[in-house]
């Protein structure tokens, strides 16, 4: 087998492939931003998919169980961003916890979340007294235990 044409062919395939690959990355990479960084992008930050990271601002969570409309505010200590999402909040969702929401800034500067990720901690954290499930849901457990 002649080596040179084979090498040229392989090189060409590799180049096209690398071009496709990094082109795909450029278009599909989702930036990870804090509310502050997102706001700093101004109009450039509107409508593009991003991952917004921060804490759930205490007292900001409003959930309507009927319409499944979930609203809360993500803050990084400097800036905050109102977030709107549809669906039930994850069970462990609570004030002050770290969240990452994927979505985009829509009209009116509200972040429309398509995905809500609660940062799982690797370490165990036992529930605080009064936060234990058997305390919180004791009416439910008592009702159903004969």
């Amino acid at each position, binding site marked *: 087998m002649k080596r040179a044409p084979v090498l040229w062919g392989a090189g060409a395939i590799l180049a096209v492939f690398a071009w496709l690959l990094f082109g795909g990355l450029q278009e599909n990479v989702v930036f990870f931003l804090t509310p502050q960084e997102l706001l700093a992008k101004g109009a450039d930050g509107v409508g593009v998919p991003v991952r917004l990271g921060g804490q759930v601002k205490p007292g900001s969570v409003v959930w309507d169980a009927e319409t499944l409309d979930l609203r809360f505010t993500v803050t*990084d200590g400097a800036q905050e961003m109102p977030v709107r999402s549809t669906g039930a909040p994850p069970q462990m969702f609570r004030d002050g916890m770290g969240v990452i929401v994927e979505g985009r800034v829509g009209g009116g500067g509200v972040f429309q979340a398509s995905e809500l990720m609660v940062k799982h901690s690797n370490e165990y954290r036992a529930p605080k007294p009064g936060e234990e499930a058997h305390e919180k849901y004791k009416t439910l457990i008592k009702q159903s235990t004969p």
Partner: protein
Amino acid sequence: MNWGRATVAVLTAVPVIALFAFGFTRDPGEIPSPLPGNPAPDFSLAVFAPGEGTLSRSVGDSIRLRDLAGKVVVVNFWASWCVACRDEHVALSETAREYADRPTQFIGVLYNDRQNLGLRWIEGMGGQSYPSVTDRGSLTAIDFGLYGVPETFIVDPAGRIAYKHLGPISARVLRSKIDSLLPAAMPTGMTPRDSAP
């Protein structure tokens, strides 16, 4: 054994291993935060209130943060509608005068306000010794991660945010922070305070 080829091959592995080694310096779960210690975001803003005496800059000039490298820069965000800003106004103006002959620069940034209201406020407060600039679209405020006004950032000669103060700032805090950032102390008996009027 072809050692030349082997060496070339091994060299290609170096960036890969370096990349992983770099990974150890990162915490992927960390959320970046504009806390002190980070480089201050650069800005170039137009002066609308000139300031007084040697500290003054002509209206319409732009002040660029990067040009002030080597100086301790005090960036104070304020607004005419802000009540707490009145409390710190005298402290800022006087401290700026005290440090006039040291490598320092005070800048007021008008936040979410109109220039003429800002000028009228300065007049009503008995003047401002240092220049103030306008921040169209609050872009600089966003860069700095402004929480609310008043808020004061002290940038060290290397351009890093050394200190961030929420709420009205006092002359004592300003002096201690600026002194700790200035390159060398002045000879005794020549404290900057002496030059205050």
